[in-house]
């Protein structure tokens, strides 16, 4: 690992931005220290066994991105129609107030603050800090503009918040993205994290999102990785789900050449529920790596996780799904399923569904499969006069569409369907029929 000015700065404890409150400074110093202490991952590092970090080793991606802007027209291409969200725009990790929706026009019950001015920092880095990784520490140590989004008690907010992260710099650089999402008890809200890129961008996005879902609160969370393949993305989503709360997350990984997401969902109160679903569709030389962990710390919680992937060309997918049932977490129900389709001779999947159980009165199950498209289903379609190629497209799309269909937000479903269909259908006529048929 080459040393860069950033490494020197972090090691010296002089992080890039100085923050107002001592709490932030303390957390950052601790993170900087931890980052400097943590060895660079190699093949022998269990969490990075299948994910080489060669692209980062030259150090060129450790130049912090400069603040830049994009025209409103340029941003239009990333809009999700009909979502009618309250949009917050980050360009290369810098918050762009002028491109974002007017912060004074927030939906009732919602407040958004800059981390530096936040009224309550009690939960800052609480979830992420507990499960800190090398890149999590890097994120914390180098925060520039982090936003704190608060949903007030009893607020039922129908308008989703769309955090649009645009990678735009055309020379290698590091973009830091950080969100602290806090829902007070009995509230309901939707967060969409949308990662995109402009042409020729070469950005290493290092993102952390912390979700705190209060008692009886409900959180809908979508995280869409749709950057171009010249970009890199390592991120983490750390959540605390409190008593009787519900977190519903969906992950889509289609962008960036290297995508690594650590998802840690921790139950903090009884009767809570979490759903983590995800889809990954790497192609060319992309590598997608999901490391998920459900921490069942308390009794009577349910978790359900379904991840599906189709891996083509010379792409690789890594999935590590851990269910950790702590000693007192009796009456837990936990399920995890990971299904993979390999569509090329050069593609590769490494999956590891893990169970770690310290309580006896629980029911846990996981399943994992790796295969090509079902030969029988294929035969069925072929006997009905459907070409090999079209049948492949139909079956692949269907495999993923099952999860897309389940999403609660129809605007997201409508936005994703053509994006995903385009991945499979190389001929325009297939594309039309896929989008059309799926809509019917």
């Amino acid at each position: 690992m080459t040393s860069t000015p950033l490494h020197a700065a972090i090691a010296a404890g002089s992080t890039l931005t100085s923050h107002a409150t001592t709490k932030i400074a303390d957390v950052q110093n601790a993170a900087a220290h931890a980052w400097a202490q943590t060895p660079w991952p190699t093949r022998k590092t269990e969490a990075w066994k299948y994910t080489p970090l060669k692209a980062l080793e030259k150090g060129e991606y450790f130049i912090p991105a400069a603040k830049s802007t994009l025209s409103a027209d340029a941003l239009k291409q990333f809009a999700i129609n009909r979502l009618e969200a309250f949009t917050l725009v980050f360009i290369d990790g810098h918050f762009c107030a002028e491109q974002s929706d007017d912060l004074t026009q927030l939906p009732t019950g919602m407040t958004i603050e800059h981390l530096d001015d936040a009224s309550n920092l009690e939960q800052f880095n609480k979830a992420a800090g507990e499960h800190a990784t090398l890149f999590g520490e890097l994120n914390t140590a180098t925060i520039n503009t982090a936003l704190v989004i608060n949903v007030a008690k009893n607020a039922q907010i129908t308008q989703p918040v769309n955090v649009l992260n645009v990678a735009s710099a055309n020379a290698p650089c590091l973009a830091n993205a950080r969100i602290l999402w806090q829902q007070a008890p009995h509230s309901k809200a939707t967060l969409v994290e949308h990662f995109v890129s402009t042409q020729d961008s070469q950005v290493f996005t290092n993102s952390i999102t912390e979700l705190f879902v209060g008692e009886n609160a409900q959180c809908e969370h979508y995280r869409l990785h749709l950057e171009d393949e010249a970009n890199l993305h390592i991120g983490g989503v750390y959540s605390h789900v409190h008593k009787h709360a519900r977190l519903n997350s969906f992950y889509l990984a289609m962008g960036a050449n290297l995508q690594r997401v650590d998802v840690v969902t921790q139950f903090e109160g009884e009767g809570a529920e979490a759903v983590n679903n995800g889809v990954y569709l790497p192609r060319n030389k992309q590598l997608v790596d999901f490391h998920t962990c459900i921490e069942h710390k308390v009794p009577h919680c349910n978790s359900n996780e379904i991840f599906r992937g189709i891996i083509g060309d010379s792409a690789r997918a890594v999935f590590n799904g851990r269910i950790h049932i702590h000693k007192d977490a009796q009456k837990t129900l936990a399920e995890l399923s990971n299904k993979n389709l390999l569509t090329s001779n050069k593609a590769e999947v490494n999956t590891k569904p893990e169970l770690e159980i310290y309580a006896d009165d629980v029911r846990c199950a996981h399943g994992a499969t790796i295969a090509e498209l079902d030969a029988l289903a294929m035969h069925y379609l072929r006997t009905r006069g459907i070409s090999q190629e079209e049948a492949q497209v139909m079956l692949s799309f269907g495999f993923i569409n099952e999860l897309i269909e389940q999403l609660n937000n129809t605007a997201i479903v409508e936005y994703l369907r053509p994006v995903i269909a385009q991945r499979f259908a190389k001929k325009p006529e297939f594309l039309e029929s896929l989008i059309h048929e799926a809509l019917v």
Partner: protein
Amino acid sequence: MSQENAQSAPNAEPLSDADQQIDDAINKEYSAGFVSNIESDTLEAGLSEDVIRFISGKKNEPEWMLEWRLKAYHQWLEMEEPEWAHVNYPKIDFNEISYYSAPKSMADGPKSLDEVDPDLIATYNKLGIPLHEQQMLAGVAVDAVFDSVSVATTFRENLKEAGVIFCPISEAVHEYPELIKKYLASVVPVKDNYYAALNCAVFSDGSFVYIPKGVKCPMELSTYFRINEAKTGQFERTLIIAEEGSEVSYLEGCTAPMRDENQLHAAVVELVCLDGAKIKYSTVQNWYPGDEQGKGGIYNFVTKRGIAHTNSRISWTQVETGSAVTWKYPSCVLKGDNSVGEFYSVALTNNYQQADTGTKMIHIGKNTRSTIISKGISAGKSSNAYRGLVRFNAGADGARNFTQCDSLLIGSECAAHTFPYIESKNPKAIIEHEATTSKVSEDQLYLCQQRGIDAEKAVSMIVNGFCKDVFKELPMEFAVEAGKLLEVSLEGSVG
């Protein structure tokens, strides 16, 4: 189910009474725990080149064997102890272990059972392994290993007629040096892992089996071995070679006397399964697991691996109930096209036992198939982990794997884990893996008790049902022993 409990337990007894019985049963001492007073020729603790020269000299080994051991020793010195397994134990001081122990009166090597030390024979009898009876009635050839030297080998003549070689590996080094040179460490390389390297340097003895081309071994081969001398590591080395189209079934079973200090056991088993051959390797392992405070017990760090060539089949079946710490992954390298690998395992842990066990299936050839059925049962304060690897290489077109790992938890202080590594580089291969964890169902227990079956018997029935997929793969005598073992090991873990 012990006798006392059977008598004292009224059928419809409430569970709290069952608890009491269970406690009694748990407190029962390890029934195979005794030390026989045979004088032993034990080497002082410590490991050095001299120790290896001593072991080698003791066996009159040829120079090439000594050199091989010394080379392994130097490689071992440079290796690091693996720490990835989900087990905790105090660091082993490899210089506090004695690496050679042979029953003294055996020094000259007996030719038949009559020459065997009567004390030794008595030990076997206590364990219920009457050699004479087995010779005559069971029709099983037994290569009994007492500590480190094979003392009695039976039915050798019968096997010889069929052309089967079944002898201590130390003897094979002298009599069949070409086979040893060709196959020793061909499956598990010297540097494969820390304990395998250690085994290469200091291995004491073990079995050597050679089945010639096209021969179906006329009887099931079996080794019973025990660890006897305190502070003596036993480093077993087994090599089985099945030539083209041959077949063999090999049984391995063991119990060990009670001991306070932890004993290290680092065995290596290598199977060479040539074209069209079949090897079935079954193990019942019931070494001393330590007492209810977790004191003592055997450390069992074993490397078992087989290479399956074209159209051949390797089947591992294991019932693991003993040892304080188990670290064991019987594996198949499915090298030839159409080869088959199987792994059936029941691992039971109680009290403070820790097991990290599973298998590896490496699919290299086309149309290779593998099946993994693993049943883990944790009771008391134990920890039981399944760790497996299924790998499909790019050339393994049409390969197929099915894996099922189920865990059963008995008691609220135990732990069960599953760590399956699944890797595929071939779109024409299919892997299915599923795992479940649950406790003994209250409904099932209630149903049994309602029908007059006491809680303990009911649990035993439920657990035996849970394991039946594995038991049915065991040779008959072993299946009976395994059922009994589970019953004894589980006594009283329900409440």
